[in-house]
């Protein structure tokens, strides 16, 4: 066996495998994906009246007005920047995390007219791993219902029905945790998502 022969084999085999694993394979997946699941394969986009995208139902967005359900805090860029996904990466003993959560708890209680002893849902004041989490917990959504209903002059019972419709349950009733998709929910309230 000579080293040169082995290097030659390495180069040839690398080339063949590159063509198959990095050329043929992704193209077959591309073709089949675009054929069978075009909506998902292109980013689960929601299109506006002009046919241009206004959201992806999978990616959270920032909403701050009273008439919208607020998403979770986001550490992605300046908030929900999907070119810069990620978490805060603060450890449990981080002073910065402590200060941020303290502020968010106060803000959350104030915005939703809650008492100073009302426990705040963890997802409402802790940032997600991706910074793009489209969901909030059901508990969190229900605490926001009175505020949003008032801002929209809506009946709370009607609003809760829409919240329920925009809730993703456990897959097969077992897997994962249920969550309210706030992108679907807020756009449904605006009439831009059906």
């Amino acid at each position, binding site marked *: 066996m000579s080293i040169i022969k082995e*290097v030659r084999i*390495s*180069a040839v085999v690398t080339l063949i*495998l590159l063509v198959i694993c990095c050329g043929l394979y992704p193209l077959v997946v591309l073709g089949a994906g675009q054929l069978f699941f075009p909506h998902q394969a*292109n980013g689960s986009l929601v299109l506006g009246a002009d046919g241009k995208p206004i959201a992806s139902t999978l990616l959270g*967005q920032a909403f701050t007005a009273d008439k919208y359900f607020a998403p979770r805090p986001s550490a992605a860029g300046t908030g929900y920047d999907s070119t810069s996904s990620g*978490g805060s*990466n603060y450890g449990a003993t981080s002073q910065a995390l402590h200060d941020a959560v303290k502020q968010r708890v106060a803000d959350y209680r104030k915005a939703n007219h809650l008492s100073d002893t009302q426990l705040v849902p963890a997802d409402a004041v802790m940032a997600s791993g991706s910074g793009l989490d489209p969901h909030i917990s059901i508990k969190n959504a229900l605490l926001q219902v009175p505020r949003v209903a008032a801002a929209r002059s809506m009946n709370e019972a009607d609003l809760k029905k829409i919240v329920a419709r925009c809730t993703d349950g456990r897959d097969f009733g077992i897997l994962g*945790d249920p969550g309210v998709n706030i992108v679907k929910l807020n756009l449904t309230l605006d009439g831009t998502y059906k």
Partner: protein
Amino acid sequence: MTSSAFGWLQLALYLAALLLITKPLGLYLIQVLDVRGRTWLDPLLRPIERLTYRLGGIDPEKEQHWKQYTISLLLFSMVTMLVTYAILRLQAVLPFQHLFNPQGFAGLSDHLSFDTAASFTTNTDWQSYGGESTMSYFSQMVALASQNFFSAAVGIAIAAALVRGIARHCAETVGNFWVDLVRITYYLLLPFCLVFALFLISQGMIQNFKGYDAAALTEKQTVQVPKTDASGNPVKDAQGNPVMVSQVVDTQTIPQGPMASQMAIKMLGTNGGGYTNANAAHPFENPTPFSNFIQMLSIFAIPSALTYWLGRMVKSPGHGWSVWAAMALLFLAGFFVCWHYETVGNPILTQLGVDPADGNMEGKEVRFGIANSALFATITTDASCGAVNAMHDSFTPLGGLVPLFNIELGEVVFGGVGAGLYGMLVFVIVAVFIAGLMVGRTPEYLGKKIQSFEVKMSMLVLLVLAMDILGFTAWACVSAWGKAGLNNQGPHGFSEMLYAYSSVTGNNGSAFAGLTANTYWYNTTLAFGMLIGRFLMIVPIMAIAGSLAAKKLVPAGPGSFPVSGATFTFLLIGTVLLVGALNFLPALALGPVVEHFLMWSGKTF
């Protein structure tokens, strides 16, 4: 049902599914790892396989001595690493920019390219960059995805050579590397990835070649950003604080690209390198709890099947299942610790009025919740995968200790594809050696005498693991460049460094991701950590394979130590835990353990 009941139910489902696929996939592996094996894909793939051999000038019937096998493997890894390095450096000047690099990303720096090429070649997939803001489609699809296939196939090939060494006697050879590489890629990885990728798309994962989309926001946001001068440097005021200015954000740039094809092999090959910075926490990379479940299953699928394959190859199915049981018990122990502490949460934050019933949700996604985040973290570090669906940096101290300790055990709990099995077999050799010492007999393993050469090589593997992790961590701790990268202060800062070098040595790739590693010193030391952790372990393991293959069989006698059954399983678990604890408990005490007590006394940094 309570959420804890759902956690138990999902764990039970996961274990049942894993158990269910182990034997069928193991039986399939028998065919794949035999040059004369037959599979139902033969009509399609046999001609391509034969053509590959012909073009490469490979004689598939000719087996290699362990040294030849190792040299072929090392040369192949070197050639492919150079290809990856070159593509990353040149990504901005390669042809078809508008198709393959629509965002116009620049070429990577020399140290980032070196780090990333080493990272993907060694099956580590440590990422010092954010994919969606750094990598062109071509780099993702060719430079990185290729290594996801190659490094996985190389890992399985080494395990195959070692098991052949154990199964054979008076033999010169341990198989042919090129045949193993080609057959594993064609018959095992590609077909499963094809189906897996389509499943992932159905759940919401993207697969396209269009440029990034710009979504017009329903509600424009005003945010504060640091002011920069004409050359892009942040402007500071007289006190040295950055000056902030208001900026209106009216669009969300939605990343696109060929994600699903790469993510399938990322999980199945226990690579773990994310397409995006947030990895499997990103809603595109892990859209639903169902996709999460199947991704977790795909991490353990091949490593679990390999234990069955081991049992069949050495004609002792009980041995394979005993190894499987040791792995499963270690996996469960880790998961329960992690799940418990993440459920209890962070007392510093619950004191502020956060609902303690919700657990520690910092860095976790609502759709996965506490149980699935703890489960994924345990699985990804038991194996050498390193994909994450929650940020380990933000776990509670002891919840985060579990992934860290899993890596430091050598990732032998199912482990990486191939790497988990060959790592565990090193512990098996140490375990039978210890058992032999206890009863005062020459240790035997499946009819082979275990002698000083095998024990020396096994100890070399374990020493490289400890030296590589602790040596580099110690260096970073006392260096300005080491401390400059920290995102957290106090003991958690130390944990960030310890995790980084544990992760690269174990070829895991997950991180306490607050660490800013994209610097000259971090990239370079991490890259060497990975290369040492991969190749300095492969060589002694291949030497063991060669040595065992050449040995004569000694008939089993009344003094032979049985390597199947509960006694062996617990001896193996004890050996793994003992070696891990002796090596790493002092370092863990300085990091997560002390942080745990500080957290409960309310101390922050």
